[in-house]
């Protein structure tokens, strides 16, 4: 469904991605794992059009979307739930959710809104509150719900557990599992490698801007090198 090949990207003089390949099939949950600065988040941002690629291609449903603008990529069906949540702090929870559906013109938005409130009851409670006043965990739930409001074909999660208390991290993991169970295609970047590998059907290990290992979530969990370096065994 999503195929990335030979992708290169960077900031200023520095190249961060030195030609990476990965793909995500329909209905799959794929995780990108690796140390801080390995290029996982840059890979996502390049796919989403926030960072301009310097080489390689991104294909989505057979269409070449390399270098398309961010808003065009959202319209194509790829939505990202960004690192650090990035909710609109001065807008209400409801306004944030409605912005998630910005590109949609269909009549089912109200139903989806209700669906999200069902899935995340805390959002219904906080609906008229400014998003900036929510706790970190609540903001993460809002960011996830806001991304789903776009009815994406692929939903990308960038470091959803970052900066959250362990109890909330478990909640986030459970939420992503539920979204996956609904049949959503997911691309996940996580520093919490264990959480990522448990969720993922397949995973790619990033090291300094290259993909060094690829396999099922289970296989990577059992790989002795991965276990030693990333799972803290």
């Amino acid at each position, binding site marked *: 469904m999503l195929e990335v090949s030979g992708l290169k990207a960077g900031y200023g003089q520095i190249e961060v991605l030195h030609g990476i390949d990965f793909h995500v099939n329909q209905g799959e949950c794929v995780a990108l794992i690796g140390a801080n600065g390995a290029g996982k988040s840059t890979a996502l941002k390049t796919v989403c*059009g926030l960072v301009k690629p310097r080489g390689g291609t991104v294909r989505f449903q057979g269409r070449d979307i390399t270098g398309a603008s*961010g*808003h065009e990529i959202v319209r194509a069906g790829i939505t990202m739930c960004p690192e650090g949540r990035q909710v*609109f702090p001065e807008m209400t929870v409801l306004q944030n959710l409605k912005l998630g559906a*910005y590109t949609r013109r269909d009549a089912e938005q109200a139903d989806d809104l209700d669906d999200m409130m069902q899935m995340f009851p805390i959002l219904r409670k906080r609906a008229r509150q400014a998003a900036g006043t929510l706790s970190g965990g609540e903001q993460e739930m809002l960011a996830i719900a806001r991304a789903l409001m*776009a009815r994406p074909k692929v939903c990308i999660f960038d470091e959803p557990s970052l900066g959250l208390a362990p109890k909330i991290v478990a909640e986030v993991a459970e939420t992503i599992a539920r979204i996956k169970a609904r049949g959503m295609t997911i691309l996940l970047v996580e520093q919490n490698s264990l959480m990522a590998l448990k969720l993922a059907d397949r995973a790619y290990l990033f090291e300094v801007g290259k993909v060094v290992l690829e396999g099922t979530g289970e296989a990577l969990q059992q790989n002795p090198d991965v276990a030693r370096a990333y799972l803290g065994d």
Partner: protein
Amino acid sequence: MLELVQQITNGVAIGSVYVLIALGLTTVFGILGIAHFAHGSVSMFGGYLVYVLVASQGVSLWLAIPVALIVGMGVGGLIEFLAYRPVRNANHINAFIIALGLTMMVEGINLQLFGADQVVIPTGFDRVFEIAGVTIPETRLYVILAATVLVIAMTAFVEGTKTGQAIRAVAQNRDAAILMGVNVRSIPLIVFAMSTMLGVAAGVMVGSLFAIAPGVGEAMVVKGFAVLILGGLGSIPGAIIGGLVLGVTEALAAGFLSSAYKDVIAFVVMIVVLLFRPQGLLGGAK
């Protein structure tokens, strides 16, 4: 007491003009981080345009004003596209220099097109209403009403439409707005068109209440930025309250103390407010 109410009424009329100027400045600043100094001169261009249409071309005021508002939207969009867009990703000082140059350019264009004489838009509004002992000239009443309608319309646009919400989203987090599918290249155009339209409305009000002359636009933009700082940078409610506070303070100062010192007194009030609330009346702590 009656005198006080009278002065406050006068202040609200002048304050309405400041509100409209400041609304344009605050939305442009809040979303693009640009201190758009040319705003006052562009607004006066709109005032001049209505004057020329009405006084020399014999066009009805009720046709001239909408024409000027539409021209204002176009001019605003052009300014964004030709002047500010090229320096969008450059150092902030570049947009600052462009803003200063643009001010001189627009002032020069106004001078070339409309001359150096001061002009008053012939509205034909010469009735004076009396409501419970407070007298209010027809023009002032219309200015207050028109400003109220424009503020309500703008609030409805920003709060009630997808585009308006996208504008707020871009102001708060540009990257996240892109991820929502907002085309962030079209937002500045819309913001400038809207801001300039409000500015032109203010220019028409200045031309009807007082007079337009070279330098008036620059004086208005200084007042507009004062309102912005008073109300809180980038805050829409702040611009509304700040504009009214400045207008009423000036009117009270002119009515009870001295009209020669009204600007001084208004700025002293502003400084005192900022001593206690450095972020402005409605600005968030940042």
